[in-house]
Structure formats: C-alpha cells, structure tokens
C-alpha cells in the first residue's frame, strides 16, 4: 500500500535527477574539445617545463632522452670544498637571477601604477562629451595597436644618443649638456623601457576603465549635481568606488603582462643588466646557452612568482572574478 502511494513521487524525483544528469553530460561533451585543447597547449607544456627543471637537459640531450634526473640541483645545491667552504649553486643562489627578479618586480610595480593613474585620467577625459570623441577614442589606441617590435625599434631610434630626436630636443632646450645613451646606460635603461611601455599600454588601460566608467549611470552624477557635491568629492566618493571592479580587473591584466615582459626589453635594451627580466633571462638560458635544465627552473620560478602575486592580489583586493557578489 505504501509503495503505491510513494511510487509516483519517487519516479518524479528520479526523472528530475535523470534530467540533471543528462544536462551535465551534455555540458561535459560541449566542454570536452576545449579541455582537450587546453591540455595540449597549456597543461602539457607547463608540465614538461616543470619536469625539465628537474633534469640536466641541454640542447644536445633534450630530445634523445639522455638527460638525467637531478632533483632540485637546478634550483639550489651545494658542494663542500676541500678547505671546508660551502659553495652554493643553482638558480636561487645566482645573483643574476635575483637581479632579474628585482628588475621585473620594479618594472611591474612602476609601470602598472603609472599606467593605471594615466589610464584613468585619459578614461575620464574620453568619458566626457566633446566633439570628435569617437575619433579621439579610436586614435588613442594606435600605440596599443602597433606591434611591440615596431614600437621598440621606433623608440630605440628616438632615444638614440647620436641621431635620436629626444636627445636633440633636450639639447636644444638646454636641459642636458651632452647626449644620453638612454638604452645603453645602466641607470637610464629602465627609464627608457618604462617610457615606452607606459606610452604603449596606457591606451589599453584607458579603454578598459572607460568601459567601466560608462557602466556608471548618469543619474548618479545628476543626483550629486543637484546635491551640490564638489566634482572632486564625487570622483572619490562615487566614481572611484563604482569603478573599482573594472579597475581591479584592468590592473590584474596589466600586472600579469608586466611580470612576463619580454619582447620590449629584448629589443630595446638587449643585454642590459639594468633591465633584464625573468623572462629574458630564462629565454637566454634556454635558447642561447642551451641550458634547458636551468632555463626551465627559471621558467618554473617565474610561474610560481606570478601565481603568488596574483593570488595575493585577488585575496587582498577581494577581486570578484566570478561576478557572484555583484
């Protein structure tokens, strides 16, 4: 008797879970090609890279399988000499590596900060209504659209100590006495790189933030206008808090890019101690010196450092990447 009463209910429940399972299965099959693709282009190379970092692979041994497992030797190892001194070796004991880490972090911090501030200023201007706004919005993207190699070469010429227009201008304005070899001098190389990167990337930041600004309803500003609130206060109390989600996402994009920077530095200031970054150093080891073991160890460390920065940023900034809180 009881079974006959509960049976329809049970069947309904089973039907519903069946439907859910069917949906989940369909979703899986739709996702499968992308997961497969991601595995081959992201997960597998990353895994290989990490594996190489634990071997003594070189350009000669990497493909014939003669490289040997060396554990953490590429990262850090030590040998006790006959006289009792301890000699440290490996990436983590390499002053060149730490110089590259310092360069990368310094570059990322300064460039992202300046790009955010300048990008926000540009975005605020472009958000205002004026004649020819559409044209200006498109024109401002030109530095971002030029390939990095081209803009690095272009700026290389402009910064050249003998023929460069920048030295010429500064000389004519009597700001300097003699030409400066911007990209070659260790103390100015980083400044040169920063100038080019900021010139190139500010438009991108401006556009991301402009999109955020345009999401803020006009009513908010009009309401503040009727209340007679000073525009500077409106900016800090209304615009900035409402722009925060877009701002945080823009900064994280740029931070990731800046920590991985390679092409600009490799073209503009090759072999400069003052600008060599983690990516450049790891590239030199892998491609020029053929030291796959150490190069892979550096790549792996770069990956870990970026991961730490991003996790810290998301955690401290409480960035809402899933969009669930809005």
């Amino acid at each position, binding site marked *: 008797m009881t079974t006959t009463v509960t049976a329809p209910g049970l069947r309904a429940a089973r039907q519903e879970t069946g439907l859910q399972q069917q949906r989940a299965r369909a979703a899986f099959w739709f996702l499968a090609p992308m997961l497969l693709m991601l595995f081959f282009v992201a997960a597998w190379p990353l895994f290989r890279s990490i594996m190489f970092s634990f071997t003594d692979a070189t350009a000669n041994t990497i493909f014939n399988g003669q490289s040997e497992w060396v554990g953490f030797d590429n990262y850090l190892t030590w040998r006790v000499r006959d006289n009792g001194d301890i000699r440290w070796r490996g990436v983590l004991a390499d002053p060149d590596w730490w110089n590259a880490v310092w360069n990368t972090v310094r570059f990322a911090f300064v460039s992202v900060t300046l790009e955010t501030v300048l990008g926000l200023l540009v975005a605020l201007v472009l958000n205002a209504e004026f004649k020819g706004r559409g044209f200006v919005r498109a024109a401002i993207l030109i530095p971002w659209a030029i390939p990095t190699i081209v803009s690095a070469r272009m700026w290389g010429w402009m910064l050249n100590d003998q023929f460069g227009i920048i030295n010429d201008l500064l000389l004519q304005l009597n700001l300097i006495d003699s030409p400066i070899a911007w990209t070659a001098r260790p103390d100015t190389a980083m400044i040169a790189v920063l100038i080019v990167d900021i010139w190139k990337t500010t438009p991108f930041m401006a556009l991301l933030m402009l999109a955020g600004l345009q999401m803020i309803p006009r009513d908010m500003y009009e309401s503040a206008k*009727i209340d007679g609130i000073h525009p500077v206060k409106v900016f800090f109390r209304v615009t900035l808090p409402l722009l925060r989600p877009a701002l945080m996402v823009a900064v994280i994009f740029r931070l990731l890019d800046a920590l991985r920077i390679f092409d600009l530095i490799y073209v503009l200031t090759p072999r400069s101690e003052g600008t060599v970054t983690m990516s450049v150093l790891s590239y030199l080891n892998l491609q020029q010196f053929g030291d796959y073991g150490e190069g892979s160890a550096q790549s792996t460390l770069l990956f870990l450092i970026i991961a730490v920065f991003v996790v810290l940023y998301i955690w401290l900034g409480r960035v809402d990447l899933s969009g669930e809180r809005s």
Partner: protein
Amino acid sequence: MANIQLRNVTKTYGAVTVIKGIDLEIRRGEFMVFVGPSGCGKSTLLRLISGLESISTGDMYFDGELMNNVMPSKRGIAMVFQSYALYPHMTVYDNMAFGMKLGGSSKSEMEARVRRAASMLQIDHLLDRLPKQLSGGQRQRVAIGRAIVRDPRVFLFDEPLSNLDAALRVQTRLEIAKLHHEMRDVTMIYVTHDQVEAMTLADRICVLRDGLVEQVGTPTELYDHPNSIFVAGFIGSPKMNFLDGQFAAPHGCATLGIRSEHIDIVPQGAGLWTGTVIHAEDLGSDNYLFVDLGAKEPVIVRQPGKVAIPEGSTVSLMPRAGLLHRFDESGRPVQAPLAAE
C-alpha cells in the same frame, strides 16, 4: 514654497527643438503633473526646471527670482529619478545623508533629519542596509527620503513609479499623495506618461504634446472639458470614443467624442445609434462592450456590474445629453451651440 514661472521657454539640441516655447505658472504648494506621450518633452521640461539642462531661450523664475543661470544645487530643489539613482556602495543612511554630509551640516542635525525622513516613509529599520538588499518599492522610498532630507522648496519626480509592478505602483502612488498632504508648502512637479497617475495625484495637470502645452487644468476640467481631441483622447480610460462623418454631421462638428460611461443601452429602436456587439470585456466591476456601428472603430460602452449581452447581438445606443464633445476639423472644440440641442 516656491511659485514657478516659465516665460516662452524653449530648448534646442543642435537642429532639434524639443521644447517649443512654453508659458506656464506653477503655484506655490501645488502638485503639478506633466503628462503626455513619449517624446512630448515632459522629461526635458522637468530637467530644465531642475537646472540639469540649460534653457535655450526664454526665462524661468522661482518666486520672482530669475533662475536661468542658477546651478541646480542653488535652486532649492530635490529630484527623484526613475532609476532611483541610489549609490550602490553606500547604506541607506549614507545615501540619504550624502548630500548633507558634504554640505557642512552638524552631525546631530544631519542624523535628526535623516531619521525624521525615514520615519515619515517607514524605512527606519532599513537604514543600515545596502540598496541591493532592498525591494523596488523600498528603494523608491529611500530615493524619496533622500529628497525629503534636502528640505527642498520644489520637489521633482521623474516617472518615479515606472519601474514598479502594478500593485506596488498603486501603493506608492498613495504614499506620494500622503507626502504631498504632509508637505503642503512644497511645490511638487511630477512627470508621467500614465494618465491614471496624473488624474489621481495632480492638483493640476499640464498635458504636453510635441514640446508645447496642450492644456493645463484640474483633472476634472481636463476630463469634462478637454480643449482638443488630443487631450480628450489622452485623458480617461478606456479612451474616449470618436465618431466622424455621418455620425458627427448631425451635431454640427467634424468629430464627435463620447466617453464610454456616457452611453446607455436602450430598448431597440429608442436609441440614436444601432450596432452589433463584437466583443465584451468583463472586468468584474464593469463590462466593456465593443459595438460596431459601421464607423471606423467600434464604440466602447461601459456598463456597470454584470450585463448579459451575448456577442453578436444587436443593441440600440443612446448618448447622454449634454455629455457629447464636439470638435472641428482642426481638433478644437466647437463653441457654437447646436440649434437642435
């Protein structure tokens, strides 16, 4: 608190003139409703009064003081926006106090004003919440509360009920009416496209059409004596019936208007018109009969209570004497009395 005068006010955006010369006086403490179809310029007119838009030509006075170039914040106005325009990252209290907090009021005075406004609107218990934790009706009340806190001499409402569902709209309408009652000396200007809101709230209604004032008057004046076909058709629900040609000619006009409740069903042959019931709508309290007289559109006849007239039956209709509206070719009322009437 303010008497508002508009003298030949126009507003032009580039080549488009939206407001085409408006003369209007809004009396102190009056509840004035701007109503009209979309694109008639009613919201623009409100924005001109608020100062969010500047007047192209003409003059505007608040209590005799020229307002053309006065900043919105110096006009003594408060505005309730259609979207509520609440700051999503601030609590209800901060939203209501924001304008004052930065205006240099003392903390205790500010709190007293916010609490008083909150209790007027029964939102005291919501002061610590964020706007996203509120329902649509509560948000609307916070927006109104924020306006009350400003202690304005003119209260502006820009379609404040459009984002609410039907039941809440009726309830909030009642609260706005109550608010007007409690703030007798504050002039209120209210924009809506809904003629029911206009009829129920207004002391006087200003009907706008294509950037011009079509008619200004009390709801009753507009309902009983519309001075154009446009007003006659816009005010009242269901819409006034219009008949022309052979139906209008005997009454000495180009178009004859008659409201649905002013037509009686009379015994066969006793009526002025005869037609077939083609559709009936039962609203519970009323019945709307759609009667085809052979005119361009069926005539709607409103019958109170339950009427059992099946579709397809022939009825005889008699308009009530003296309640016919006669309009000439230009849509204006015919003044000359009809000899036969």
